[in-house]
């Protein structure tokens, strides 16, 4: 009897070890976060701080226990704004063992080019929401609201502050933007319809090259049409080119922009950027009392990051890593480690409702809506981005056929 009990105990321990070890094998040593970022191409002034942002955020998340004890490891690749390089890096990612669950893409054109492959490879992607990278619906989610939604939010604010009776006419907006997928993202029929609905006259749509440093000619054309606002869907050097060219011809311009028109733009342009009105989707770095801003500022200082990296993209990287931690954890709860894949992560993304990583932004998605929709209005004053409204829902101006 004693021998039998010893034998049974040994068998029980053996079975336990076998099951235990097979379970442990299914839990990965680390979760790779593949990132395709333009660190050396035309968008680098905007996107390069993502490198530091992802590194710091991953370290923070790993200190908090990662995803159920499994650390996150960002794997950063520079595409230089070239889609062929992005494809090469993407191919490298998809062949990794174990296969990654997600991929982050920082440029609109690359997001669009990789869109179909991401679906075929069953990955979940987060990308800037330009052009057709988000709609038609696939596996890609927007890092912030659609550019056209932000422009809609700007139009809402213009109308709220416009006295139709006193002025006796509709407000006039001219669009001056880059001739790229990113810049032209607001030139959609839905935006035109929304402007009409809001009694706003879009009086001109003028484009310029991403490499242009002077837009005087374009501004002279716009000036003749007497707009109340000039809205631009671009950032950094492009926005500064507009402000400088306006200053050069002594044209007191009232400039509007989206969330990418941020601190990197202010650092480059200086005082001439004052007065611009922005639709922001991330907390202002200048809101020093905010707990989320306090935390990332502490990390920023501890890691001795350069002042030029104190931008939207650094915050965006934090928000992305924290979101990945949340949705991958939930996906593990749902399907376990052994069945964890991009589809499971995507399902959890579609369930996110008003998720606010460190309070920096708000992410809400659904199976029919893959771009968040909250923002606030802010103005640049003395080189700081000062909120002038609370968080609000932006109008939904995604292509009508995808609603």
């Amino acid at each position, binding site marked *: 009897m004693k021998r039998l009990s010893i034998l049974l105990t040994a068998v029980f321990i053996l079975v336990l070890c076998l099951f235990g070890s097979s379970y442990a094998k299914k839990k990965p040593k680390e979760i790779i976060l593949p990132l395709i970022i333009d660190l050396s191409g035309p968008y680098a002034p905007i996107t390069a701080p993502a490198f530091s942002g992802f590194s710091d955020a991953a370290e923070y998340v790993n200190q908090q226990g990662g995803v159920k004890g499994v650390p996150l490891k960002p794997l950063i*690749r520079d595409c230089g704004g070239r889609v062929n390089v992005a*494809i090469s890096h993407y*191919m*490298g990612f998809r062949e990794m063992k174990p296969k990654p669950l997600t991929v982050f893409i920082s440029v609109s054109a690359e997001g669009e080019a990789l869109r179909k492959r991401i679906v075929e490879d069953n990955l979940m992607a987060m990308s800037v929401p330009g052009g*057709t990278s988000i709609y038609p619906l696939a596996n890609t989610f927007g890092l912030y609201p659609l550019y056209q939604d932000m422009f809609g939010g700007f139009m809402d604010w213009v109308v709220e502050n416009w006295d139709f009776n006193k002025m006796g006419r509709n407000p006039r907006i001219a669009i001056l933007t880059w001739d790229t*997928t990113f810049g032209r993202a607001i030139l959609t029929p839905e935006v035109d319809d929304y402007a009409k609905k809001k009694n706003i006259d879009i009086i001109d749509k003028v484009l310029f090259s991403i490499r242009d440093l002077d837009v005087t000619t374009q501004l002279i054309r716009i000036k003749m049409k007497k707009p109340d606002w000039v809205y631009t869907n671009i950032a950094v050097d492009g926005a500064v080119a507009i402000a400088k060219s306006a200053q050069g011809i002594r044209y007191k311009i009232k400039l509007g922009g989206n969330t990418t028109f941020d601190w990197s733009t202010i650092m480059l342009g200086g005082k001439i950027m004052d007065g611009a009105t922005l639709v922001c989707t991330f907390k202002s770095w200048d809101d020093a009392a905010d707990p989320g801003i306090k935390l990332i500022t502490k990390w920023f200082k501890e890691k001795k990051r350069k002042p030029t990296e104190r931008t939207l993209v650094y915050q965006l990287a934090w928000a992305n890593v924290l979101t990945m931690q949340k949705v991958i954890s939930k996906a593990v709860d749902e399907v376990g480690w052994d069945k964890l894949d991009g589809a499971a992560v995507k399902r959890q993304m579609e369930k996110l409702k008003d998720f606010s990583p460190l309070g920096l932004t708000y992410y809400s998605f659904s199976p029919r809506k893959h771009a968040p929709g909250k923002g606030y209005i802010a103005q640049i004053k003395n080189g700081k981005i000062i909120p002038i409204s609370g968080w609000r829902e932006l109008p939904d101006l995604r292509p009508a056929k995808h609603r």
Partner: protein
Amino acid sequence: MYRPCGTFDETYAQDIAIIRTPVHWVSFVVGIVLLFSLPLLVSGKYLALINLIGISIISVHGLSILTGYTGQISLGQAAFMAAGAYSTGLLSVYLKFPFWLTLPCSGLSAGIVGIIFGLPSLRIKGFYLAMATLAAQLIIPWLIVNIRPDLTGGTNTLVVPSAKIGSFVFNSQGRIFYLIMPIMILVTFLTRNLVRTRIGRAFTAIRDNDLAAEAMGISLFRYKLLAFFICSFYAGIAGSLWSYWMRAINIDYFTLIDSIWYLGMVIVGGMGSVPGAVFGTVFIRTLDLLVKSIGPWLGTVVPSLAGVAAAALGPLAFGLIILVFLIFEPRGLAHRWEVIKSYFRLWPFSY
């Protein structure tokens, strides 16, 4: 041309053969076997690079004929590729043409576009012609984006279906490799032969002295436009393959910078040389991917340099290598290749 000792041409066929000796044949067969084994040997990341190199070689051969052999500078090669790529996009998306039909059609459409922009070459040359072809780089993308954005997608991406033969779909890097490489080899072979024909000699005569060439009875009108047509035809084929490889087309993929780099590939490889076009393309494309890996790696090793290092070091290293290369080997990689071959031909008894 130097021949290995004991190699004699006894017939005209031997005299004009591209592959001359048994060693050449063995090298050729081994090279082809190795090339077509690559999808089994290398990862998808490098296969994507090899496919890109294959597509670029086709385009650079075209530019080499125009610039290297005929002496007509063009800054519009990427735009001609765009013409081919969008022809493929429109024909395959809206008219459901199979790839074997879209491929020549795209080449032809780009060729015709090339002839239009080549017309100024009859009146102007040198830097002035470069400016005229620069116009192609501005006008073609503008037309693609603005004339029928409902068809081309405007600045948005146009998704292109995968190429397929029967039920075999070229939807992975490994599969499309077998579409790109045979075409690349065929184009290289055609180019090698073309430059040895009457047409090729006419091109060279025009490059060396167009007045003298005309005095000898070479029609400048015909041959200059033919050079533009061939250059753009190749670019169209390359653009078509690009769209099947990428399965998406966006006008941002065909910029002036790309045109300049195609010219750079011709120069680095060696003007007026078929192997030069291959060497130049392999060198530039590989270097491009390599320098883009330096920045993120350095950012990981030295965290305080993250981002900034990547932004600065990649282009810096790229520019520096090209600069140093052109100083020490202005005649291109093809010349260096000839020097190496000559050395080993006489080795170990060189004198």
